[in-house]
């Protein structure tokens, strides 16, 4: 069991690390094709990374450890997330530690590290980006907590593998009012957390409208490569989490190598499909006015709250 479990984790982390830039490339390419442009190709994020890693590292004068350590910390938390979140298998050696609260805390830790780095640069943009990012994060993290919590009530545990395995056994949980509300809430939260439209525009060059990008404006070279890689990892993990929670079919619930390999194939497909769907949807969305973003996020929080309430009151048959 342990060999297969470790294999599952290795495959999962490997797939996330190698696939996250490809996912970003896929999403950009989808968008480009839908807009009638040629696009840069799936491999462009990897090519960018290679280019950035070859440049010399530059640290702005007057910055301290917060700026220095944020990129590795962001990547590290994202990789730990990639280990914990059940994407390929629910029976791994670490499944007991894959708690909902831990996952949300790790997400928050990465966000916080970057926000501190933004403040550490002492520039107006770093501060502005950090302030906007924290405003959004303060509304997003509770939403993620609440919506997954709504799913955890029928499972009777906040452990993610248990929730996912439970949903595989009883798919009806997902189509319950609580499940549907939680899907909606979590989707909005994932959009905001990964800095996508309509909350943030990842492709803008207008520094004054940026949220995530303003915060990391001072990074260059290998550091920037890490920051971008971290953001890509988070997007991949969040989409994977979304896929596992709401379309868990195919995930390995036993310690069989064939099941794990099949699950890997399926999760890659699911995430790719989700990514393409998100990119396609983004073509039709515009960016909200900054002051409208809290309204959207408060709405998603409300949905999550309703999901929790619904799973309490409608969960009688359990």
């Amino acid at each position, binding site marked *: 069991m342990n060999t297969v479990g470790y294999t599952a984790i290795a495959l999962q982390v490997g797939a996330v690390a190698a696939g996250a830039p490809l996912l970003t490339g896929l999403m950009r390419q989808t968008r480009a094709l839908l807009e009638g442009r040629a696009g840069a190709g799936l491999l462009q994020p990897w090519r960018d990374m290679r280019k950035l890693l070859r440049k010399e590292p530059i640290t702005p004068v007057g910055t301290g450890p917060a700026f220095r350590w944020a990129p590795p910390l962001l990547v590290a938390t994202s990789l730990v997330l990639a280990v914990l979140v059940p994407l390929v298998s629910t029976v791994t050696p670490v499944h007991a530690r894959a708690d909902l609260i831990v996952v949300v805390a790790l997400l928050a830790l990465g966000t916080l590290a970057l926000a501190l780095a933004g403040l550490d640069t002492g520039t*107006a943009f770093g501060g502005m980006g950090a302030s906007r990012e924290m405003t959004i994060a303060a509304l997003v993290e509770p939403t993620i907590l609440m919506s997954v919590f709504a799913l955890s009530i029928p499972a009777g545990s906040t452990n993610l593998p248990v929730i996912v395995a439970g949903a595989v056994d009883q798919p009806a949980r997902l189509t319950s009012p609580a499940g549907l509300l939680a899907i909606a809430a979590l989707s909005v939260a994932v959009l905001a957390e990964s800095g996508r439209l309509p909350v943030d525009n990842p492709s*803008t060059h*207008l520094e*004054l409208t940026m949220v995530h990008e303003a915060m990391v404006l001072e990074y260059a070279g290998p550091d920037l490569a890490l920051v971008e890689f971290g953001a890509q990892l988070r997007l991949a993990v969040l989409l994977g989490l979304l896929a596992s929670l709401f379309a868990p079919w195919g995930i390995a619930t036993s310690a069989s190598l064939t099941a794990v390999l099949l699950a890997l194939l399926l999760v890659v497909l699911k995430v790719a499909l989700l990514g393409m769907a998100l990119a396609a949807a983004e073509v039709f969305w*515009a*960016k909200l006015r900054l002051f409208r973003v809290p309204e959207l996020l408060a709405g998603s929080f409300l949905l999550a709250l309703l999901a929790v309430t619904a799973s309490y009151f409608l969960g009688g048959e359990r």
Partner: protein
Amino acid sequence: MRTVHDVHTAELPKRAETLLRDGHRLALVAAHHDADAVRLVYLFVSGPPDTRIELHVRLDPVRPEVPSLAHLSFPAGRFEREMHDLHGIVPLDHPLPRRLVRHFHWPKGWYPMHPDAGDPPAFGEQEGPYPFLEVTGDGVYEIPVGPVHAGLIEPGHFRFSVVGETILKLKARLWFVHKGIERLFQGRSVAAGLPLAERISGDTAVGHALAYCLAVEEAIGTAVPEQAQCARALLLELERLHNHVADLGMLCNDVGYGILNAHAQRIREQLLRLNHTVTGHRLLRGGVVPGGSALHTLPGRTRLEAIGEDIREIVRLALRHSTVHDRFTGTAILRTEAARDIGCLGYVARASGLAQDARIAHPHTPHGHPANVPMHTGGDVLARFLVRAEEIDASLALIRQLRDCVATGAVLGPPPAAGAGPGSGVGLVEGWRGTIATRVELAADGTLTRVKPVDPSFFNWPALPVALNDTIVPDFPLTNKSFNLSYAGNDL
């Protein structure tokens, strides 16, 4: 048409006040270093009927001082500051005697337009402190942006004083692209001046070239054939088209609605290729020449119909998108009174309820009057978007109409007899950004002694910070794009 009055320094404010009260606006101020005096030319215009009145004032070349008109007209105050920075002419009692055009590192006492200026010196110590007005209070902080930006745009430094995300005050410092164009004109032949005029602001090649040619033609007394007049009006509308389409797309892009931008840029590219067949240059250079026009082909009727339909669809899609509509509505309102006081021109003025259009007020041809000048009163980004969208339709209609009286090939007027013109001339043209004014003076041998172009951006820039009061910082790029002012045309 144009009347010239020599006035004494002391009576200048009184005469200017009368003219301004009678509905004229100050279109241009140019300083000339004559042999015996410094001569200032104040050009007041109004229309219709097309009226151009020049006041000429002579100053002592040793101590050039002139009473300020800043208390009468805001643009006058800016022209005076420009004159001070470039010529060393002192406006007396100016309420804001700070530098305007002068670059931070120009050496003290060096005036690039002064006859003794010589070659540009190396950058020296900066002249005096040049502080920004500091806004203080609880939670107020400053965001300095530029002059180097994240995107490929012209250089400008913006200093926002912000509380939370709301802009309390914006100061724009723009003058980083002084090229010495006015000086470069001096001593050139009329023909050699044309390429320079076409490059004053790259996106306004026709507008500036036409204003220059009109001024030169008045100065030497050329009569332009009717077919060439039509060709010029047609080129002007083609230029309006490709700029307006690009900006409509970029406004959508700035609110994250990229697909409309992709399509707007596709249409712009079609228009640029069409331009290439019309004049041999994608930005329409070479179509307007002194004395006439030179077109290769005419734009196809069905082609323009198709492009027009494409553009209308983009506008429809943008306005029907609720988020886009919401981002445009009520953003950065420029009130009518503010636009009037600042002296705004072009679509910025027309979106704030001012009917400013040189095609009506100062027509250079009896043909091709726009049937209607689109106007809105909202003054917000939406109003500017709508004015420009509607102007595209008006331009297409105008091009359809003008096609019938245009001839291809070189259409030139007969060369005038020597001494037929007054030696000076003024061109007023409604470029796509607004009214361009160019004043030209020629020497007896026909070379240019002084060319003063004024881009509408010079008038419109001060309106941007006014419109941005109480707007939030993330809406600045959108507002800036909705004004889309030229840095190069502003800073000659």
